């Protein structure tokens, strides 16, 4: 698998990263090197092998349905570049 320049640009756009054509070309080569490296894994036959989801075999930890967090609006909005009365402010986005 390899990517072309338009795929690189599309992925960048979806990730909201602005890139120039030159940079897209560089990234294409870098990404293809990475993909090529990872592709070596294809040599391993994994037919009938369950995907490994965890190194150790244990059940997912669950929490009880108890409210024990939140009510920290000051902390939550502490790093916001713009805020008003505990609202985050962002450039206007309207559908």
């Amino acid at each position, binding site marked *: 698998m390899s990517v072309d320049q338009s795929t690189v640009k599309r992925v960048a756009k979806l990730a909201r990263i602005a890139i120039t054509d030159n940079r897209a070309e560089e990234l294409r080569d870098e990404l293809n090197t990475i993909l090529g490296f990872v592709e070596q894994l294809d040599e391993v036959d994994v037919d009938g092998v369950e995907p490994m989801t965890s190194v150790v075999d244990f059940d997912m930890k669950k929490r009880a349905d108890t409210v024990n967090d939140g009510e920290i*609006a000051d902390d939550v909005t502490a790093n916001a570049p713009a805020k008003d009365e505990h609202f985050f402010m962002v450039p206007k986005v309207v559908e």
Partner: protein
Amino acid sequence: MTAIVDTRTPNPKNFFPGQDHDWELVIGLEVHAQVTSEAKLFSGASTGFGAEQNSHVSLVDAAMPGMLPVINEECVKQAVRTGLGLNAMINNRSAFDRKNYFYPDLPQGYQISQLYHPIVGEGTITIQVGPDKDGKFESVDVGIERLHLEQDAGKSMHDQHPTMSYVDLNRSGVALMEIVSKPDIRSIDEAKAYVTKLRSIVRYLGTCDGNMDQGSMRADVNVSVRKPGSDFGTRCEIKNVNSIRFMGQAIDYEARRQIDIMEAGGSIEQETRLFDPVKGETRSMRSKEEAHDYRYFPDPDLLPLEFDDAFVEELKADLPELPDEKRARFMADGLSEYDASILVSDKAIADYFEQVASGRDAKMAANWTINDLLGALNKDGKSIEDSPVTAAQLGGIIDLIKADTISGKIAKDVFEIVWNEGGDPAKIVEDRGMAQVTDTGAIEAAVDEIIAANPDKVEQAREKPNMIGWFVGQVMKATRGKANPKAVNELLRVKIGG
């Protein structure tokens, strides 16, 4: 994903008229139902509605770096309960995936959802469409494709500032169940009946409050049109419809829009659309198109969600009686399908009725609950929870009728007094002298008086026995409605000799 199968036979009753031929609607619904829980799906912040902005937000919900999700077991149970209520396959092993997109109300940059392995698989619910003019309902089976758990996003407000949007993350991370139907729905009435039924099921189960005003339930509606019985057409998806009435309007507009395009020789482009309730139309959300590449992948922060059969069996054993079972039981008790369907539509109404009917005639209890109580509630825009007349009071009124203490007509007056002023029906009847006159002597005197005053009418009544009704009316008037109508009738028959 399984292949889409057309399970329905085209029914001309549902068709939209067209220029050259009729059109058939094909509708599939994705309903987002907020899980009833105290805390969020992956954090310990409250799910409470209407709180101060960003107060019910933990650092997990705000997606601060390094925060890890831990699943709320109750949300899992609620999803399983709902799956059981939808007669669906419960998957003992499911998994969470990340759905990636950028929006200011989604701080993680992805929504944790279940694309590949949902917690609930295929199921079926039976909806009741109608009633038609004869009070009959049509039962239609609608397939459920899946139900999965996912996080809700936050909320953006655009009217607070000229150039900025305001973001509140209180809803961010609240558990939602997305319930996806198969494309088995063929009319607006069926779509409405489907959402109504779904809402009723989750409310009976207590897994979602079904409150569409507060956004606890909203639907994405997939609509396409086709020549009846032909292959499925291209669909458009109407996002975030938040009332059953708007859904009807949105489908109607969208179907006509698509038919107009096809009849003008055009073709439908698959797209996401938004319903504008003010204008009553749908419009394209072009900005969503690009974002449709969600690049799903398994969430590495979460292990698969696994439970054993015993976990499911325990939940199953504790399920309440669901609307279909309740309706069947009410009908077995002698109620009509119409009455039973209305009573079970809302669990609170069914509970009220059962209290009224307890130890009393079911049919009579149903009539009073539906015609008088629900009628009055509708008129005043009140819900059953705010009913000024309790089940015990309504039961008391029915007891007075049964005991021949008051007539059905006087009972309506008593109902109105209880509605407006409250109080014990028996005491009201006693204090205000509303008990009907069963003393034959008093009734007889009134009957004699009327007969004596109207010899011509008596003649007529002998010819036409129907005329007796006029006399009954006169006697009731003379006794201010308090005479026992049965006694009046008998006396008149004897005296006039009808």
